[in-house]
């Protein structure tokens, strides 16, 4: 990587300290926005930059901000720092090592929608990061960068951190808002979307940590500059969290459009012990399994190109699987995760993930036959298109794609005789 936009701390030692961050044009963008730019212009800049949400859906960020109605107040901004997709660990690094860039992005977002309060919803396991951010927020308040009537303007802003209690579903933005309000973390019906009825039923922007970390650079350098990176439709860089059967797992910040080959082999050092690359999950547990061969390896990784595999980039938690991995085993692990994390609100997800998990367990323990594999497939199909939120839908992706694409792995573990019936 020649140039860091998000993981700048890797190039600039001590960036997590306020003086160092300030030395490197820290808060210049925020100050410029508050003192010189009308909020609508900030939104337009972000729109023009083409910045897309890094949480998984890839929705245009500026467009999201522009949806907030100006006849209903107050507005809120919430940073989604619930980072809980298996295999995703990018927001953690950003918040730990480049916290001010994220906070500045959050502050610019708040200014752009004229929110006076912003929340950072952090997964419970990151309690130490919440404390760390609390310190950083206190430093900003002391430095006069955060608080009442900033830089002599009328604009005031406070930021609060809020710890989740260990539920994956609270990364879903409406469940996150429920949880932030002190309620059980279950997704809300959409519409209405948070942009019109979010936190406390008020217009709310919910953005991922990495998304927000892009914002200061866009405001500082302009939207055109941002298009120097990435692809036409997916400008900028992306922090790929690389894990699984790979020699050098870790976060890699690369421009959108980087190929699988480049990421896995050039940066990740390839699969260990000379084994063969078998499949990749690009969006953590919420992925289809993409079988890997030479032709697939040169696919660019951006929001559009993965569609042809029935997949999506998601949060770009790239889990590499080699030929030592049986996909039935992997399916069971994935389904067990979703069973554990289903909120239980809607019937297909609550019952379906539980059922799929029991079937998958039986299959990998050799206590089931092909009949159960077929049933597992049908249960997943029966869930599809019927769930209240994406969690339930995502829980079926690994199941269906693995049975479709790696049937031999299932045939290898099942008994040859039917178990019952």
């Amino acid at each position: 990587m020649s140039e860091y936009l998000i993981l700048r701390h890797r190039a600039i030692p001590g960036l997590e300290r306020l003086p160092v961050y300030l030395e490197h044009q820290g808060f210049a963008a925020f100050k410029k926005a508050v003192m010189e730019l009308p909020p609508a212009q900030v939104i337009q800049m972000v729109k023009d930059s083409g910045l897309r949400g890094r949480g998984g859906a890839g929705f245009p960020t500026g467009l999201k901000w522009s949806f907030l109605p100006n006849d209903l107040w107050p507005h809120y901004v919430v940073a989604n720092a619930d980072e809980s997709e298996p295999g995703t660990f990018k927001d953690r690094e950003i918040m730990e090592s480049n916290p001010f860039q994220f906070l500045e992005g959050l502050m610019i977002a708040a200014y752009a929608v004229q929110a006076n309060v912003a929340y950072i919803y952090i997964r419970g396991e990151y309690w130490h990061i919440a404390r760390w951010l609390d310190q950083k927020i206190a430093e900003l308040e002391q430095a006069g960068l955060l608080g009442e009537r900033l830089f002599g303007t009328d604009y005031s802003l406070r930021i609060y951190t809020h710890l989740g209690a260990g539920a994956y579903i609270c990364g879903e933005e409406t469940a996150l808002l429920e949880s932030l309000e002190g309620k059980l973390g279950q997704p809300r019906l959409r519409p209405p979307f948070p942009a019109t009825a979010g936190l406390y039923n008020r217009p709310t922007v919910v953005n991922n940590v990495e998304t927000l970390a892009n914002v200061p650079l866009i405001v500082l350098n302009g939207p055109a500059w941002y298009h120097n990176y990435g692809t036409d439709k997916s400008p900028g860089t992306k922090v790929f969290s690389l894990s699984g059967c790979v020699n050098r797992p870790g976060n890699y910040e690369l421009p959108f459009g980087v190929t699988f080959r480049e990421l896995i082999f050039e940066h990740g050092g390839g699969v260990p012990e000379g084994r063969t690359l078998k499949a990749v999950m690009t969006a953590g547990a919420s992925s289809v399994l993409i079988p890997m061969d030479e032709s697939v390896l040169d696919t660019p990784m951006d929001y559009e190109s993965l569609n042809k595999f029935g997949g999506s980039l998601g949060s770009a938690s790239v889990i590499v699987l080699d030929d030592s991995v049986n996909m039935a085993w992997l399916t069971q692990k994935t389904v067990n995760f979703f069973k554990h994390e289903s909120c239980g609100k809607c019937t297909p997800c609550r019952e379906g993930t539980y059922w799929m998990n029991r079937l998958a367990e039986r299959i990998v323990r050799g206590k089931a036959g092909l009949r159960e594999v077929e049933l597992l497939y049908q249960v997943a199909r029966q869930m599809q298109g019927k769930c209240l939120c994406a969690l339930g839908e995502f829980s079926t992706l690994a199941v269906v794609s693995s049975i479709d694409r790696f049937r031999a792995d299932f045939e290898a573990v099942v008994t040859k005789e039917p178990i019952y019936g």
Partner: protein
Amino acid sequence: MGKMVTLTIDGQVISVPQGMLIVDAAKKAGIDIPVFCYHPKMEPVGMCRMCLVEVGRPVIDRTTGQPILEADGTPKIQFGPKLETACTTPVSEGMVVRTQTQVVAEARRGIIEFLLTSHPLDCPICDKGGECPLQNLTMAYGPGESRFQYEDKMHLAKHVPLGELIYLDRERCILCGRCVRFQSNVADDPVIAFSQRGRALQIVTFSEPGFDSYFSGNTTDICPVGALTTADFRFGARPWEMIPTASICPHCPVGCNLTLNVRREAAAGGREVIKRVMPRQNEWVNEIWICDKGRFGYHYTESPERLRQPLVRKNGRLEPATWEEALAFAAEGLRERSGVVALAGGRLSNEDFFNLYQVVTARQGRAVLYSTMAGGDYVQRYGLSGDANLAGLGKGDAVLVVATDLHEEAPLWWLRVKQAAERGATLIVANARPTKLERYAAHVIRYAYSEVLEKVQSLLAGESPEAQALAKATNLVIFFGQEGLSLEASEALATMLARLLVQNGQAERPLSGLVAVWPHANTQGGWEIGFRPDPDLAHTLATAGAVWVAAADPAGDDPILAQALEKAGFVIVQDLFLTETARRADVVFPVQAFTEREGTWTSGERRVQRFYPAVPELENTRPDFMIVAQVADHLGIPLVGRSASRVFDELARALPAFAGLSYTRLAEVVEQWPLVGRGDLYYGGTVYENTQGLGVRLARMSAGAELSEWPAVEIAPAPADDALYLVPVVRLYDQGQTLVPSHLLQQRMARAALYLAPATAAQLGVQTGERVEVSAGEWAETLTVYVDANVPVKAGLVPRSTGVPLRQPLWVRAQRAVLEPQP
């Protein structure tokens, strides 16, 4: 009416109001879309996914804004890639909905299969079996056979008490959340909730006592499976064994419509007994809800303490007698004496009141209403009128609630006033202490009990924000009670409130008026027929030649009245029980309970409603109106006594407000929305459809002469600086004779106690649990103290009907009771 939208459902073209959900629109068109979590009285959540349907919308040309047409000229319809939930999707112009396609059928089959994976399928022993949406929809759409492996079933607790009234079966629960949402959004007692997640998700209660809500029983009606059952009914009967009979709740002036479910019972010697009380839809009265007092408070009708034969005093003792003996004895007693006083309570029916009124006026006697609250005559002239429905109150309207705690006294009115406030009506609550209704109030008027009339008078002056809010309201409904008021003061209050309506120009409007929060179901009926309360009841009784008491227990309520009664020349009592009053009587007639007879009651909103006989009468009992007619017959006064409907016909002929009414009129119904209780129990729950009558509101009496000045009433000033104003307050669960036999409620019943403000308690040097002696002249009681910050200073609150003989507020001396050391 708002804009109408035209759409097509299963080929049927219908027009419905904009904003209506597909599921409701389909229902209107006679198409049932199955639901579990959706309920027409609550906001949709789209959780259960049972209502998935195919939804198509016209394709609009972006440049012209016009629909793109097919070759045949019909609009091109685009169906989405996924099914949509009919319960969350509002209709739109040109929408096409398909509910009968293969895809929809498969979706339904899938959802049912999912729901049944861990369901115990214990229908044969389930209370809901036979009226169960899950059972019905499984029969209609389910797969017939499950692919789920038996040993994977979750096994969960099956008898979880959510408090002592409602039980939860966690295996049967399909987690639709109807109960949780009802408690949060309708009843606003969010005391149950979801806990955990995924397949471990479960309903829990976190109140003390468990499921602490006066509306808890309604959750068992809307529960679409057998997960929630009442402790009263569970394992009691199968739904198809029971015969439904229309009735009216006897406990408060709201007049909730009920259905009594009756079955022959081996344990009751083969007699027909009431197995459960269910709500019956009346959107003008109780919608589809009832409170738990109405649901569980019927057991007094089957109490073994009921009187089973007439009693006649012989040689100073009450002895059993035949009806003929007792009737003749009563007539004899009356014939010999002049100055008969009928003292009747608000549990009598209109027919009972009417006959009693006829006979005492024929004997030049007085018809006294056993009540310490006035204002019924104002309600006759300034009550609601015509088709007025509290559900019509909203923005621009106002509701004033004075001197009553609706949540305790009339829970369904509390609910409906709360809903009016939520729809935007301005709610003003005036009371000496905080009540639960205040959380929805735009204005709260707080007063010392002695200042209530001044405060209300100031509303007439038009200066305060409250007065202005009342003045500018299009419609104004005023609920008034008697908390802290003497009879005279309540008369003055009613006068002032009537004047307020007149002065603001609201008195003529149908959806404006006075509603009296009476302590009994038919107190208003007593007023309509001519009974009036007596400010000096003790004197009236003591000097009466004969007293004819019906549905009242003055001797049990007040020792002074007991003494007065003993001075009366001759006492006839009609009652269900051998009350203190009956013990002092010369003749006692056993009457029938409301479950055993028919009749009508007039609600506080002046709606006359019929109740029907549900069970055969207890042997040897007769209805009050018949007893009165039979006594009258011995006196040579001809009265109708054979059937309640004929008495009502007489009544309708005699009283202008009842003109044109008949039992047939009262039994008329119109279609109500939402449609409930038909073949599809899943839509509204097990509430009964109303097929036996919505009742009729009485015509407003003409206002007549200019409203008189209100009587100059001064609430007696404190006789001494340290005097305490003792105020009886209503608690829904009291220890009245009509509730105590409902043992289920015992733990929640109010006990005799003295509630004091912290400052008052400190002054007296007492703490919670210690005892205080309160006295006024000869009257003295020693009560256990509860310190409660919600009690006004210098006041002591005593729950009514808990054994403390306090009918009206009273200034007392209070001092800490010193316990004698135990020997």
